[in-house]
């Protein structure tokens, strides 16, 4: 056996991509525990957007790597993820937002991302259906795009199993066993598992897992809702993010218009869809794409963002238990960050090498006031 007996709690894209990366580094005893069937949680509820346009250098660097991994995913896993690099077009509706875009594009260029500002006429050419009213300028990057989220989970589960990782849906963690200052095992509704290392990758439920061994975690779930419409022939050439609302809208591989936008801040407990969301998102979509008014809404659902006080992830060991590793707090963009972050986390776990881009994400930072917030949080 190579590597510790490892239990990863959470079978979404985070847990599965980490498990695969550990298995590729030679670890032979890795188990992923997922309480539901695959694709029940956030990985299946998000829009599948993937972008390099961020407002901090470390996020840009991590996403550059992640985008490469999304591009090569079909070849790496033998599973199609339908990653369409149609670009992300952010839209500024005020001088303040325009200034933010300028600063972002400059920083992105400094970090090797060839994004560019886009004038309203150019925006109209790119998206003929768009309503230009109020748009000051756009920020566009062609390498960004959208994929089919379920496929990422299935693909990672596939290659995990090929390398001997045990992927166990239907296993809900009900307790953590400790002896002294270390975890020794994980109790589930279907039996107990011995462990030398436990990784908490349970996203919105991570604090509940932490509670099971006395670790207080400061993140909480925030409900966001999403909508898909009837499937139409391809027409929307890019992913749209109007910054005055933070809505994200794109056309899926099946032709549905997908849109999500936050409603209210604060902790959330259920996935129940609200009428208030339908009103808000319908108005926003119709404002942006007037011909969408007659497009029929097909289905809406809810999902949880995993919110941290400073909008940055929680990654790293906690002080006690010493073998309890956190990998969550990924806000509403864990999906796109997971492939690259998992490489860095696997390097840390398996190689003892802590990359500077994730070195500041330990949970102890909150006692010191946390980090600077990311400015391009959307959806």
């Amino acid at each position, binding site marked *: 056996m190579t590597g510790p007996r490892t239990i990863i709690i959470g079978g979404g894209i985070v847990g599965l991509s980490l498990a695969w990366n550990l298995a590729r580094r030679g670890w032979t005893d890795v188990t992923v525990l997922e309480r539901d069937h695959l694709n029940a949680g956030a990985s299946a509820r998000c829009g599948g957007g993937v972008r390099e346009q961020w407002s901090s250098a470390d996020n840009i660097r991590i996403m550059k790597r992640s985008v490469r991994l999304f591009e090569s995913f079909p*070849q790496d896993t*033998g*599973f*199609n993820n339908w990653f369409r690099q149609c670009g992300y077009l952010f839209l500024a509706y005020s001088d303040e937002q325009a200034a933010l875009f300028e600063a972002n594009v400059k920083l992105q260029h400094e970090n090797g991302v060839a994004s560019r500002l886009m004038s309203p006429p150019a925006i109209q050419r790119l998206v003929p259906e768009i309503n230009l009213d109020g748009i000051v300028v756009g920020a566009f990057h062609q390498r960004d795009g959208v994929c089919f989220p379920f496929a990422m989970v299935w693909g990672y589960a596939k290659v995990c199993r090929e390398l001997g990782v045990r992927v166990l849906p239907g296993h809900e963690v009900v307790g953590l066993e400790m002896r002294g200052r270390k975890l020794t095992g994980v109790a589930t509704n279907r039996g107990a598992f011995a462990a030398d290392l436990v990784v908490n990758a349970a996203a919105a439920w991570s604090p509940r897992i932490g509670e099971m061994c006395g670790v207080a975690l400061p993140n909480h779930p925030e409900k966001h809702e999403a909508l898909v419409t009837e499937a*139409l022939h391809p027409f929307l050439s890019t992913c749209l993010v109007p910054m005055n609302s933070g809505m994200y809208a794109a056309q899926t591989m*099946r032709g549905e218009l997908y849109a999500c936008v936050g409603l209210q801040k604060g902790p959330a407990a259920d996935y129940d869809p609200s009428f208030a969301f339908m009103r808000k998102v319908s*108005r926003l979509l119709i404002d942006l794409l007037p011909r969408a*008014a007659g*497009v029929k809404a097909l289905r809406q659902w809810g999902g949880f963002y995993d919110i941290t006080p400073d909008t940055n992830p929680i990654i790293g060991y906690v002080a006690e238990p010493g073998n309890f590793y956190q990998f969550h707090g990924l806000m509403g963009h864990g999906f796109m960050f997971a492939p690259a972050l998992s490489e860095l986390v696997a390097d840390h776990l398996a190689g003892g090498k802590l990359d500077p881009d994730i070195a500041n994400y330990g949970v102890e930072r909150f006692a010191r006031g946390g980090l600077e917030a990311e400015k391009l949080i959307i959806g």
Partner: protein
Amino acid sequence: MSRIHDRRIYHQGANDFGRGEPVRLRFEGYRLRAYANEPVAVALLANGVRTASRSLKFHRPRGVLCLGGRCFSCLARVDGVPNVRTCRVACRDGMTVRRESAVPQAGCDVLRAFDFAFPKSLEYHEMFTRPAPVNKMLQRAVRVFSGGGDLPDRAAPAPAIREKAVEVAVIGGGPAGMAAALTAAAAGARTLLVDDAPELGGHLVGWPEPLDGFADGPAWIQAQLAALDKAGVEVALGAECLGRYREGFWAFYADGALTLLTPRRTVLATGAYDQPPLFPNNDLPGIFSTRGVSKLVHRWGVRPGDACLILGVDDLALSLAERLPEMGVRVVGLATEARQVAGDPDRAEKIRGRGVPIFLGYRAARARGALRLKGLRLEPLDGGEPVDAPCDVVAAGGPPAPSWELAAQAGGNVIYDAARGGFAATCDKTGRTANSDVFVTGEMLGAAPALTAAARGRAAGLAAALDLHPDETVAAELRRTTEN
């Protein structure tokens, strides 16, 4: 379509099928004869257009199944709006109708090559993942062929959203819903009855048999309408229930606008869904549900084809077997997997006596036909020679599956119940669900004859009203109703 023909029945006793004014539809370069009260899907069938749509992946020709707004096989672009259920839109003079998602058009679609290239299945999850350039081409190709229609031509207005409160809302206006509304109103509740069709009655609009002393379904429905009017029940038609939002109201969509309804008690009477049969080529144009054929023939007076095989031998099947020949449709036989006739055995004997075979203990093995149904093979369950029945219409019976979605959204407990024919909400003997403000009734409890459904509805309506207006006489009536 190689010939323009008219499959309508023009003289059926006193029944003129309520057609309304003659109008013309513009359909893919043709001008079709239609009538103002005909649903577009019916007008297309009347004009011999059998291919209602092309299927999403394989571009197989698809026929209409249910003619009741549930099977979504009748989608077409109507007046610049994509994916419209043509069975729910009445013809209007000059209306343009076009089937989308076919190359060059649905009558002859070259993309059906997918159906031949992938004879059993098409799973694209692990297809052509390597090398990368080929994978990129696959990705682009799949996207090109995605979706069911183009973006609407125009923007649409956003009408005001209405809000409404009632004491008892009955959602679904078939026999159970009408009965529930009548008893709730009689027991003193301010009652609203809502249905998504343009007329009340559910599938009874096509019921050809005498019912409770009335000549047929439509006549029985007329009597209920008079009673509802007299009882002061408010009726809303063409209003589709979108469901129950967490904010606590039911949302309805009618005439382009939403109404948010807050009832104190809700009786769900949304009936059951006709189910497609399961055998190879079960999606060919010409394969309808039995209730669908009955509606087509009896309510709208259109012949579905020339030769019909009926799957099922219950009373509706027997009734169709008797009536279809009068409408100019030959019945080639009836078949069922059961060993005996579910309906009236004397009627069955008379049908046999007219030379129409009844195959007991036979299953439908497969349908054949390239663009539309040409025949159905029946295989005896006990082994033996199969029967190849040439036909261009199949009326597929089989128990419809209860609707359950609204009950689940309201917090009801929904389980799989084979005895009821599918998923169904659990309830007590009056129909009260796990959400005590919400009742289920009618065929949501399983397929039932109209009068049985009506009896169920009466109980639910009484129980709902009793919650709000306690009354010993009404309580006694409820006890009597549920004792049976």
